[in-house]
């Protein structure tokens, strides 16, 4: 059975897929979002941290990733930085959130729970970490602020934090949203602008005729379309393969712990080399996140949860007696260079990536979606997408 065609099919209904759908729909493009819930989508297990510089210099969940990857003692893990061009991409995307929050709320009534605190506060536990952080601070260009705090200053800012630290590194303006509400707001905004949402299907196959995409197959049904946007998150590599495209996206599991709702306990987003913590709008504290290459396994493990809980109690001792409401896991769409994969692919007309959000998918979503839509309609993109094209992996 073949349905009437559409301009664009978006495969994947996480935050990035919905954001792209909205950016297209508001440009009067006919959009069909296709998604069926699969356990483990990254949007559902994200802390919603908007930590552009923090993630770029490796003081967000990157330092945990680094500790896991190098096998070093997590207490002494040293962050690694992402390229400056991507840091600036993240900063630019993050800059748009206040206006975006208002716009989405006006359009949909959904509050994305954009909350500002002192910023992202990295807790330094060893002298070596302090040396590296000092180095990062020196390396940041004009206009970027990274405040080095003494243990006493950390205590004044965050009385609940453990005092047995070397100091803190504060990135002001690095805040948080509710990732689920962000995805929901984008979805409703897209629907308001005329997008359609097929919520019980997956794109099983991208259909090609020679060097161009002609449609998608969802089970028995095929839909003709001019463009297919691959927003399939951790599953993007599998989907690309159906069009003969190699996309190095791999699931990277992140287990998270959510506490019961608490009165205000931490105002900043806290980060250490074993976990990060963010208190959400309704009082729960989200503790994340493991980084594991275990395929599409979305289970939680005793070791994973234990490590996060130890890290959290180490950073904020009062949490020891706090109840855990839920633990679960999501699959980040990981890429080899930790940067997203955007834009068209040479030799397959009509195919567009908006994939590989990895650990910055929430903060990057507004700009990822925008430049993707701009590429499809032929507008000049706000930010050059060349560094993010899939072709970079061919060299």
């Amino acid at each position, binding site marked *: 059975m073949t349905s009437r065609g559409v301009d664009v099919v978006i495969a994947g209904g996480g935050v990035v897929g919905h954001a792209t759908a909205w950016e297209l729909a508001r440009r009067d493009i006919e959009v069909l979002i296709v998604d069926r*819930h699969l356990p483990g989508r990254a949007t559902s297990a994200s802390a919603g941290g908007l930590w552009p510089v923090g993630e770029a210099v490796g003081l967000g969940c990157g330092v945990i990733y680094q500790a896991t990857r190098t096998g070093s003692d997590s207490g002494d893990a040293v962050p690694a930085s992402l390229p400056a061009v991507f840091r600036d991409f993240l900063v630019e995307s993050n800059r748009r959130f206040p206006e975006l929050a208002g716009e989405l709320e006006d359009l*949909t*009534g*959904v509050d994305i729970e954009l909350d500002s605190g002192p910023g992202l506060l990295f807790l330094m536990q060893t002298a070596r970490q302090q040396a590296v952080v000092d180095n990062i601070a020196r390396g940041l260009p004009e206009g970027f602020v990274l405040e080095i705090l003494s243990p006493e200053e950390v205590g004044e800012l965050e009385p609940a934090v453990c005092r047995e630290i070397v100091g803190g590194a504060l990135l002001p303006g690095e805040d948080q949203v509710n990732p*689920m*509400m962000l*995805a*929901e707001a984008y*979805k*409703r905004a897209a*629907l308001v602008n005329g997008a359609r*949402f097929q*919520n*019980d299907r997956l794109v099983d196959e991208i259909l090609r005729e020679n060097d161009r995409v002609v449609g998608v197959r969802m089970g028995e049904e095929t839909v003709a379309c001019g463009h297919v946007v691959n927003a399939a998150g951790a599953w993007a590599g599998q989907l690309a393969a159906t069009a003969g495209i190699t996309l190095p996206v791999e699931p990277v599991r992140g287990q998270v*712990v959510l*506490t*019961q709702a608490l009165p205000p306990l931490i105002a900043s987003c806290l980060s250490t080399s074993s976990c990060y913590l963010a208190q959400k709008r*309704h009082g729960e504290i989200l*503790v994340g996140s493991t980084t594991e290459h275990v395929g599409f396994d979305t*289970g*939680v*493990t*005793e070791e994973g*949860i*234990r490590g996060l*809980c*130890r890290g*959290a*109690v180490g950073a904020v001792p009062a*949490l*020891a*007696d*706090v*109840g*855990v*409401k*839920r*633990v*679960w896991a999501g699959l980040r769409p990981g890429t080899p260079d930790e940067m997203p994969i955007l834009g068209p692919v040479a030799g397959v007309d009509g195919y567009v990536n908006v994939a590989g959000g990895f650990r910055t998918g929430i903060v990057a979503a507004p700009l990822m979606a925008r430049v993707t839509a701009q590429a499809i309609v032929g507008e000049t993109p706000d930010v050059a997408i060349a560094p993010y094209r899939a072709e970079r992996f061919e060299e």
Partner: protein
Amino acid sequence: MSTNPSTSTEPVGSEAPRLVIVGAGPAGMATAITLAERGLAVTVVDQNPHPGGQIYRYPAVTPKSPPTPDRGAALRQHLAEHSDRITVLTGHNVVDIHPGPRLGLCGPDGFRIVEADHLVMAPGAYEYVPPFPGWTLPGVMTPGAAQQLVKSQGVAPGRRVLLAGTGPFLLVVALALHEVGVQVVGIVDTLRRRDAFWQLPSLLSDGKLLKQGFDYVSGVRKAGIPLLTGHIVTRAEGHERLKQVVVAPCDGDWIPNHSRSRPIVVDTLCVGYGFVPRIDLAQLAGCELAPTNLPGGWIPVTDPWGQTSVPGVWAAGDGAGVAGAIVAELAGQLVGLGVASSCGVVSSSEAERSAEPVRERLRQLGRFRRGLDEMGSLRPGLSQLADESTVVCRCEEIRRAEVDAAVSAGSTTLRSLKVATRLGMGPCQGRMCQPACSRRLFDLGCNTPEEIGPPAFRPPLVPLTLGQLAGADEEPDDVEPAGAKPVAEPAP
């Protein structure tokens, strides 16, 4: 795990299989007894201080409690007779189930991991109470909660009590309350006499059970408790505490005729419309679930022996589909035979032979049960009782109007409603609100049950602190094979 549990059994193979049963109600007890009779050692995990489950809660309320013979006492007696093979871990809750299966257990001594070769889930069911105006007032509770107050704590739930809802359980609880001196002012059942009449052919399929039903009714009559059929409680009223209940006659769709409603002054309302199977364990164990049209909707898919889609994980009793204590006990026997056969201690032909009379009895009961289910099957009027301001999710205090707004905005699955409204985000994980909510989505014609989806349960199933999880299972040696350390269970 290389630890070889020392048990008194001689099963086929070099190592005794590690068998864990969760739930010591009729299904769990019957499974344990069946396995012990075949020479296998089992560990039974239950959250209560004594085996028995909700239906056979120990101690029983009074010895003259009519008209059920105390089947619970008999099962407990059998358990005790097999104490060399059956270890009962009372006061233990399942926190999580990992592949293996490995169970995270929380008990009086803290958190620990138990490994099993076969896991039998017999968690039972909980009562179905859809939201209606005033249902969150103190003084409104489930019949089961009232029964538990009386049985376990010797506390009367109130002075003037009304029971409402549907099903024979209302009669059982009414009698139990009456016996301890509580004034039961009436039983309000949505079922009309004529609806029951049409089910007589099914009900006549089991004379003994039908007689038991009539005995309940005549017990209620003898006690002078008014039985108001074809009526529904439309609201509970009071300021900070229940003062009165409004009752109206209802039609076959349970739609009340408000013009004929009247108040009844009570301090306690016990309301329940049947039972919802507990599927949280099955979901954590990764078992495939299937929708049904009974309250709660979802049950694990099982083979004829009760094995789920996950090999080595079995389901028995009301948690696998509510059918009552007698059926649960028989289902437990079947699962016991299935597990014993899987462990190689009975041949498959012997298992078939032993199962045949059990299956025959289940077939007979099946007809009776279908009659009961048909009578008690939920009608659309029930999901229309709540008004705009009625709280539908008690944990997060979400009102009907908020849910309706989200539904109109396109949130027509439990998952999307949760995102949009926080419905089910609280400590109960949606146990209370989601069955009624999915029923309403279905009645509104939004989606099929498959699309609406089952509630998504996540660990921990019982509250644990970060400190407990941080310190849990520090040494790998803490992992213990089920059945390794028999714990003496005091004879009930």
